[in-house]
């Protein structure tokens, strides 16, 4: 049903996807808080824009390789919540027949070829996939998602070096949320100058921020074309804020210490018909309002939430 007016000629289905993935995560969060899951799950509230953008540029021969925080990409690729929920509930009807749970969840049928719970582990596998594409003469791009913590691992350097040395088309997306578990970058390491690092290996470097999914899609299309043409790996750093954290009081200061939402549910976010969490560019839902009027988005949200609840038989 298409009852909404298009503004700025942007595809409204993209906005719907952002909302669907947000709502889906909020539902997972509710169930997580209610103690329904035995497995650890890493929510990616605030990560929706890059996931939808990646999904929208992927084609038949492309491969996606994920890490432990993968719910947003799996929701984007799978286009449904129920098989993912069932997987989290370790039901045989789950997306991976209860074999993978959350942290290793892949979906080969939708080109999510591999997912690893180990920091940096997926980079060598993605490099192998890219080499496989080369041997087969495929025109696909391997997209691997990692983070500002995993890029500290030696495999980040090793894999880029191998990919460049062997002219492999690969896109390494670094979701930089400034946290590795509960430690900020500044508290654990010196700065890594990624543009210089990439340049030192002859790889390309790109950066995205602002959570504008439409801008992300346009950039990704260009990056993909360039990587496939040049056969040079690209490092794409995406600034992200993982939403759902909270402050704890320290010495009378109510905002004494910030707790980053690494894994587990957050009590700071509750399911509502309007899923915006933060009124800033940190929240892709907020950014959608650049393109669509608030009342349109809210009407759309209600319908999407209803649709998801029907999908999981909770309407």
């Amino acid at each position, binding site marked *: 049903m298409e009852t909404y007016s298009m503004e700025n000629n942007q595809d409204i289905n993209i906005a719907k996807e952002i909302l669907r993935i947000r709502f889906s995560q909020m539902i997972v969060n509710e169930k997580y808080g209610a103690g329904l899951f035995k497995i650890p799950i890493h929510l990616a509230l605030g990560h929706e824009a890059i996931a939808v953008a990646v999904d929208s540029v992927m084609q038949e021969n492309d491969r996606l390789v994920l890490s432990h925080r993968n719910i947003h990409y799996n929701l984007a690729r799978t286009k449904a919540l129920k098989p993912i929920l069932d997987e989290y509930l370790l039901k045989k009807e789950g997306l991976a027949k209860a074999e993978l749970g959350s942290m290793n969840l892949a979906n080969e049928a939708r080109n999510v070829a591999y997912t690893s719970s180990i920091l940096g582990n997926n980079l060598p596998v993605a490099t*192998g996939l890219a080499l496989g594409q080369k041997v087969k003469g495929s025109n696909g791009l391997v997209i691997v998602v990692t983070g500002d913590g995993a890029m500290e691992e030696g495999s980040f350097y090793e894999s880029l070096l191998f990919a460049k040395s062997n002219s492999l088309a690969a896109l390494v997306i670094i979701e930089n949320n400034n946290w590795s578990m509960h430690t900020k970058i500044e508290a654990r390491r010196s700065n890594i100058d990624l543009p210089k690092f990439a340049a030192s290996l002859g790889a390309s470097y790109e950066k995205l921020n602002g959570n504008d999914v439409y801008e992300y899609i346009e950039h990704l299309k260009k990056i993909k074309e360039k990587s496939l043409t040049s056969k040079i790996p690209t490092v794409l750093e995406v600034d992200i804020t993982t939403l759902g954290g909270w402050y704890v009081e320290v010495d009378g200061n109510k905002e004494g210490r910030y707790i980053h939402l690494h894994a587990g549910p957050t009590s700071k976010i509750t399911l509502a018909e309007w899923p915006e969490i933060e009124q800033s560019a940190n929240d892709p839902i907020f950014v959608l309002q650049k393109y669509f009027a608030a009342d349109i988005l809210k009407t759309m949200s209600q319908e999407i939430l209803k649709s998801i609840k029907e999908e999981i038989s909770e309407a």
Partner: protein
Amino acid sequence: MKYIEYINELIGKKTAETEKLVLFGQNIAAGSHLSGLTKGLKVGDGGLIINAPNSENTLTGLGFGMMLDGVSSIFFMKQLDFLLLGIDQLVDTYNFVRRKKLTVSYTIVPIISDLGYHGLQSSFNNFGDIASVARIPGFTITNKVDAEEIINTHLVSSGFRIIGVSQRLFGQEILDVGKSYSNNEKTLFQYREGHKATIVCFNLAFPYGLELYNKLKEKGIDSSLFSVNAVTPIEWSKIIENVKKTENLVVIDDSKSENLSCDNLLVDVLEQCQLNNKIVVKRELRGNEWLYPNPDLLQIDYDGIVSQLSSK
């Protein structure tokens, strides 16, 4: 023919006839070609030979990535201990890949540093430990028969495995003693059938076992000679039945692991067999001297064993 020449020849024949096969590893197409292991190797149509950078974690994962995309590969590795840098790929990635019914092949061929003179790293003559971290099919090559059967059966076949070769044996003439039996999995080889003693070799100990067999034969003690070329436990009822007949067991395990493969057999034998003699030859590792450059030879009192088995 030397051990390494024969293995190189077998590998070369297999890789040349396989299409779209990727061979990769450090120095596999340069210098000594891993002391001759990869010398002159060719691949069939559409294949690649990659002289790779020194990035063992990535190289270990590379093969799994290719598997997921339907491409077969072989990773040749200069020393088994280099594989320690890829352990998480052997465990976590393999656990992901093994769920799938893949028809493609990935084999890692490391050289086991059992020569001893490499110093501290030579302490890692522990092939079984590497393979057992994720119950990976693992095979060792000790002679002409097991080389031919293991390489022809497993080097390029569905799934993942590690095939270890002995650095100590590289320059020696390959042992060619024929066989009387090997199982389909190529995990168990029997070379001689006798009725007075059962000799079972583990890891890379076959040359020691053969020497013992010959010394016993000189004294008129006809022995059965087995080699378990894989990570244990395996289906070894053939050995158990033989021990029940001979009632004399000699196990030889030259691994430096705390968890010796031979121990699994001993448990089963002691549960199921009456023994006149149980002789276990393994390393006595005390202090730190075993870590330092040394000949790494297993100390065997051949005369003592012959004497013990002659007395019953």
